[in-house]
């Protein structure tokens, strides 16, 4: 089993090295396009084998070697494959495999084809470290590793120039990449503090040791740790107020958005909370957990509201990701960890599918993002239309699709906990979700072909790419059917969350309510954007000039606020500090030096070169000494 763990972990790494070292400078290589997906596939197969092993025999724990050892600190490279991590491994490797194959088609014409695969495989490797590590420091390696890969991949088209904010809210790929990295770093500081707190109070960073020691810690300390770690999770999972980077991250190539900014990396924060469930389910930190749930709910609603009016096809999907992350946090915060994890997996499948479909559209439309310029694409892109449709249905949570089971369970949980405000918000958000996802589908695939006058020539993606996307489509439909089996599997590790009898009885009612909202959302979207008649396709000037529309369009002015109240003051302060450094700190030093120098310069005039003057000075000195001697004699 050990070797399987290593194969699962290192196959992507080998792929990254293969593409990075041997092909970095050569033109597009088919070999890379074949070998890299194959290696990720190997990793997936190893994960499957591990999953079966774990299901049968329980967790696998291996320790590879020591990493940092100093004083009382000892951090090994250790890997833990248990129910939680193997779920993540399966999700990560499966989506990665599909995305790798997909990238073959999507990045077909890119001159940095090989470099792309090197980065992408490196990302998978980092993500595997993140989920497989058996200690917090190892998790932090992966945590930062995915951050860097995300930085590299968002900024993949680094040669694009900066645009003003009004023209492109993400400014440029390199700008967006830096924003993502720095914002994640802010959260990472919180996470580091959490790690320090744990180390100095537990003496170890190994999960099992930490979990064993948790009951002995003081309440305040537990709250501190919980808050610090959650700050870390907020950064990676783009929770408010650290969320702005996620929409800007859409500057990266679409496969990257599908893999990193929808299916895997952004869920790392949720994973952390689930991983630390022994901590977050403690009585002492219930306040923090409730805050997590509340924040998640808020973000779910907040992001969905922005998605309602967004015109950029990728931004819509990114915002829906953000919204779904909010759902996951809501579930995790309410204690339903396994439901959060289940939704995480389901979401990974349908959201990756949605993104890849959006990628097909972009590919067909020469990287055009504005859905107002699309329309009627279903005639030319039937395959992508079906996939996008499936993914959107799953996202909207219509019955028997994956999202129906997982999202419904979260909403049910909120009801069961008696947190009705969260429940209502989540139900409303579900309706909004259905609306904006179908708005997007209708906009791009139905209606008249607005792209025709603009001179586009759309064509569907390569056949093999469409075939490769099939597993995601199948899972987007069917993943929910395995819910009970998965529950039996995962609750060996995570607390089993049971609904009360009361909730159980009216579960069908709750489910029907959610579906009702979703259907209403879809119906409105259909009426407005796909139907025939006067209402459809009309851009409503009055609405677009309204305050709320402006508010949503400008993302609640949060990026403006950051720019105005954080970035600009920071720049000004830096310049001021530099000025002070020159004028005050260095100036003081120079003044001292100058004083000494000037003293020498002034006394230089004594040095006339005239012996007579010297003798006069000597005489004066001698007299002075005599006088001093006389005075001291008189006094003494």
């Amino acid at each position, binding site marked *: 089993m050990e070797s399987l763990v290593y194969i699962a972990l290192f196959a992507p790494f080998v792929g990254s090295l293969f593409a990075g070292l041997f092909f970095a400078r050569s033109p597009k290589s088919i070999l890379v396009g074949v070998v890299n997906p194959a290696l990720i596939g190997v990793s997936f197969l190893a994960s499957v084998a591990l999953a079966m092993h774990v299901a049968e025999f329980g967790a696998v724990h291996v320790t590879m070697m020591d990493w940092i050892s100093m004083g009382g600190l000892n951090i090994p490279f250790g890997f833990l494959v248990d129910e939680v991590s193997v779920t993540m491994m399966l999700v990560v490797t499966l989506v990665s495999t599909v995305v790798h194959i997909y990238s073959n088609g999507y990045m077909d014409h890119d001159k940095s084809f090989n470099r792309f695969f090197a980065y992408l495989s490196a990302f998978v490797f980092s993500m595997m470290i993140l989920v497989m590590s058996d200690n917090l420091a190892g998790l932090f390696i992966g945590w930062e590793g995915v951050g860097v890969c995300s930085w590299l991949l968002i900024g993949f088209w680094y040669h694009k120039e900066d645009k003003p904010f009004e023209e492109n809210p993400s400014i440029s790929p390199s700008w967006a990449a830096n924003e993502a990295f720095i914002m994640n770093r802010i959260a990472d500081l919180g996470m580091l503090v959490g790690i320090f707190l744990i180390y100095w109070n537990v003496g170890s960073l190994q999960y099992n040791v930490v979990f064993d020691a948790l009951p002995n810690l003081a309440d305040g300390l537990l709250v501190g740790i919980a808050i610090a770690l959650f700050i870390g999770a907020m950064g990676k999972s783009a929770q408010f107020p650290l969320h702005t980077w996620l929409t800007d991250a859409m500057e990266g190539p679409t496969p990257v958005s599908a893999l990193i900014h929808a299916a895997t990396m952004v869920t790392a924060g949720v994973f952390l909370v689930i991983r630390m469930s022994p901590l977050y389910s403690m009585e002492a930190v219930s306040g923090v957990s409730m805050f997590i749930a509340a924040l998640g709910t808020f973000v779910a609603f907040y992001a969905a509201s922005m998605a309602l009016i967004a015109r950029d096809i990728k931004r819509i999907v990114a915002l829906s990701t953000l919204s779904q992350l909010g759902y996951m946090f809501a579930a995790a915060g309410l204690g339903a960890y396994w439901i959060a994890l289940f939704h995480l997996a389901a979401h990974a499948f349908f959201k990756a599918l949605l993104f890849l479909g959006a990628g097909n559209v972009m590919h067909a439309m020469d990287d055009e993002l504005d859905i107002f310029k699309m329309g009627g694409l279903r005639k030319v892109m039937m395959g992508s239309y079906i996939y996008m449709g499936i993914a959107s249905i799953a996202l909207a949570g219509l019955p028997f699709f994956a999202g129906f089971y997982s999202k419904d369970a979260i909403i049910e949980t909120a009801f069961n906990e008696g947190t009705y405000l969260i429940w209502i918000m989540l139900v409303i958000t579900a309706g909004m979700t259905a609306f904006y996802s179908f708005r997007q589908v209708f906009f791009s695939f139905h209606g008249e072909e607005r792209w025709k006058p603009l001179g586009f020539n759309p064509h569907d993606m390569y056949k093999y790419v469409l075939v490769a996307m099939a597993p995601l489509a199948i899972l987007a439909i069917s993943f929910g059917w395995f819910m009970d089996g998965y529950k039996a599997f995962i609750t060996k590790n995570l607390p089993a969350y049971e609904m009360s009898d009361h909730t159980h009885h009216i579960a069908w009612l709750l489910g029907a309510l959610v579906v009702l909202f979703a259907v209403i959302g879809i119906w409105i979207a259909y009426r407005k954007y796909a139907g025939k008649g006067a209402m459809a396709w009309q851009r409503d000037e009055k609405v677009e000039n309204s305050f709320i529309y402006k508010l949503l369009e400008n993302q609640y002015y949060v990026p403006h606020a950051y720019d105005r109240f954080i970035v600009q003051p920071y720049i000004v302060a830096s310049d001021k500090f530099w000025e002070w450094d020159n004028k005050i700190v260095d100036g003081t030093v120079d003044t001292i030096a100058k004083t000494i120098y000037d003293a020498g310069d002034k006394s*230089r*005039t*004594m*040095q*006339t*070169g*005239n*012996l*007579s003057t010297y*003798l*006069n000075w000597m*005489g004066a000195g001698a007299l002075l000494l005599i006088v001093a001697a006389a005075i001291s004699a008189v006094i003494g």
Partner: protein
Amino acid sequence: MIGVSHYLILSGLLFSIGFVGVLRRKNLLMLFFATEIMLNAVNIAFAAIGNYYGDLSGQMFAFFVIAVAASEVAVGLGLLIVLYKKYGSLDLEVIANMKG
């Protein structure tokens, strides 16, 4: 009766004359004369005090001073001649070339 104090006053007067000469004179040769006067003033004081205490070492010191002064004059005058040949003058204002 001429006592030791008279000698010391004379010595002091001579020393002061020499000292003022050293400070005021601009000609190197005159400076030499002035230092000689000072030295001799000290010699008088040595001799007088030596006599007063009945101790011969004072007078011996005077002889040493005379010997040293003589050799100093020999060397010094030689240097003066060289300087004079070089600058054509012994005026300190003229040969001041170490101005800082």
